[in-house]
């Protein structure tokens, strides 16, 4: 089969993605132990779990800042890649959902093909917009606040106290966890279950040749 390789994921993005993945998985596991120490001790002692959670939290918060800096000011593609356009919301979103919940089962071709300038289908854009611009920043901010209760005590009390802060952090983390499960599952919906995982590791995605005008960086037979 004649296929093309496109360079979809630049090195900084891949480093960010896997650092983020490692950090978030660590946060989830250590977070479960912190909340349910009487049932879970996978990270060792409670103190170890706390230190691991704090470290991973800082890594993910820095990683998020790196991601934002890279896309906003280095590649300049933040808005184009992550913010859905009106047409994508009114038309593309429905088309993509129709594919996932009907066309895919019938064996139809995917309506969207990723390119370096347009990596995400309208559904992905909408989801990532919520995750990367709302959930991750707020779960990071609430986590940073929990690390700095002393200096922030009066502000936190005015906002409702530690209980509210912990509740927010927990709910946001659960939403992120729920997204993660969907995210990993949807990543298996390529031509093969690992087809979408490979480009996030190597940078190159193998795609079937659809249009002669596609920007090619390499081809394989």
């Amino acid at each position, binding site marked *: 089969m004649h296929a093309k390789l496109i360079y979809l994921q630049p090195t900084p993005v891949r480093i960010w993605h896997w650092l983020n993945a490692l950090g978030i998985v660590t946060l989830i596991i250590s977070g479960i132990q912190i909340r349910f120490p009487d049932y879970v001790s996978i990270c060792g002692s409670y103190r170890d779990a706390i230190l691991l959670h704090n470290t991973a939290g800082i890594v993910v918060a820095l990683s998020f800042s790196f991601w934002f800096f890279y896309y906003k000011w280095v590649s300049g593609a933040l808005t184009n890649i992550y913010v859905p356009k009106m047409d994508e919301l009114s038309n593309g979103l429905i088309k993509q959902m129709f594919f996932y919940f009907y066309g895919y*089962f019938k*064996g139809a071709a995917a309506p969207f093909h990723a390119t370096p300038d347009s990596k995400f289908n309208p559904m992905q854009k909408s989801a990532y917009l919520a995750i990367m611009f709302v959930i991750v920043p707020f779960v990071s901010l609430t986590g940073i606040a929990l690390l700095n209760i002393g200096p922030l005590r009066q502000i936190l009390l005015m906002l409702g106290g530690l209980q509210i802060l912990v509740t927010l952090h927990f709910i946001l983390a659960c939403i992120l966890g729920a997204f993660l499960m969907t995210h990993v599952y949807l990543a298996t919906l390529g031509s093969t279950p690992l087809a979408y995982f490979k480009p996030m590791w190597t940078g190159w995605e193998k795609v079937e040749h659809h249009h002669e005008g596609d920007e090619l960086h390499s081809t394989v037979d």
Partner: protein
Amino acid sequence: MHKQHLPIQQLAAIAAVVASLIPQPGQADPGYSFGDGAQKNRSCLSCHKDKELVGAANQISPKAFQHTTHAQLGCKTCHNTVSDKHPSDGKIARTTTCSDCHTDIASQYSISKHSLSVPDCSACHNPHSVHKPGEVYALDLNKTCTTCHTQDKIAASHAQWLPQSNLHLGSINCITCHTKSDAFVLSVYVSRRDQKTTGSATTVADYAYLKSKANSDNIAKLVDRNQDSYISIEELRNFNTNPLNKDLYLKAILTPAATSHAFQISDKSWNCTSCHAAGPDAAQVSRLVLPKQDGTFQHMDIEKGASIAALNVIPDFYMMGSSRNTILNMLGIGILAGGMVMPVGHGFFRFLTRKNRRKE
């Protein structure tokens, strides 16, 4: 010492003693009786309240002394060698030792490292102003420790191993961990949220402030709305949500249920999960602690066996692990279950329709 007093001071002292024996209306410092009904401490305190007369080392504050159990016993119970000619006899009014009465404490203390370097009880406890632990603001008890163990050193040594060490030190008595207490009591104080000094340490509201808030001597009614001398979780919740209490908040301190002067650290104190995974069983008792007019504190029981529920309505206190909320846990599981809908639901139909996607 009395031996060093100049003759004129001794004369003044004798004159004061004589004067104190003559009943004079209005002279007896109304409001306290020097601690004993028979006023037998009066003659001693009439001189010993005066620093100029007896020197700083021998000065006794009648106000502080009157609250002590020692005052009820009377000066001569401990100063049993004092003669009727004191101080003109030039002899020091020697005292019995603390261990004569406090035998259990002396026995505990003898095995403590402290007993080697600080053998004298009065180095930590002034017998003329000592209070029972419950009569003092819980964190003020730590001041006894910080007299020798400076706060900087305490903070540094705990920061070496204890995550969020400052938070722990600000919410737990030293003796909560440094005694072998198996159970804890959550002491809840009404604290002032000083808006003008945002970021600074907050303080426990004193009696005068709460009296002005309550418009009454009965300051307990600020929390104990039905005035049954028993605090329900609902009353704590109402206190938090009452807009009139915006300048106040509930501050919780973890205090030991039992203390020991052996000051030994229980092995479990090194294990975070002894508190953080203990759940409601380790902290069944909580109490509201309110200031009294005389500067000490009184206690009022909070709903029995509901410490964790009490924690949940105290905005300034959260104990990771133990304070988790069951309803919130269920909500979290629901959200995560929602995340499984796509993998499980879509995956199921994906499996059933796998033939449609087979490539020729």
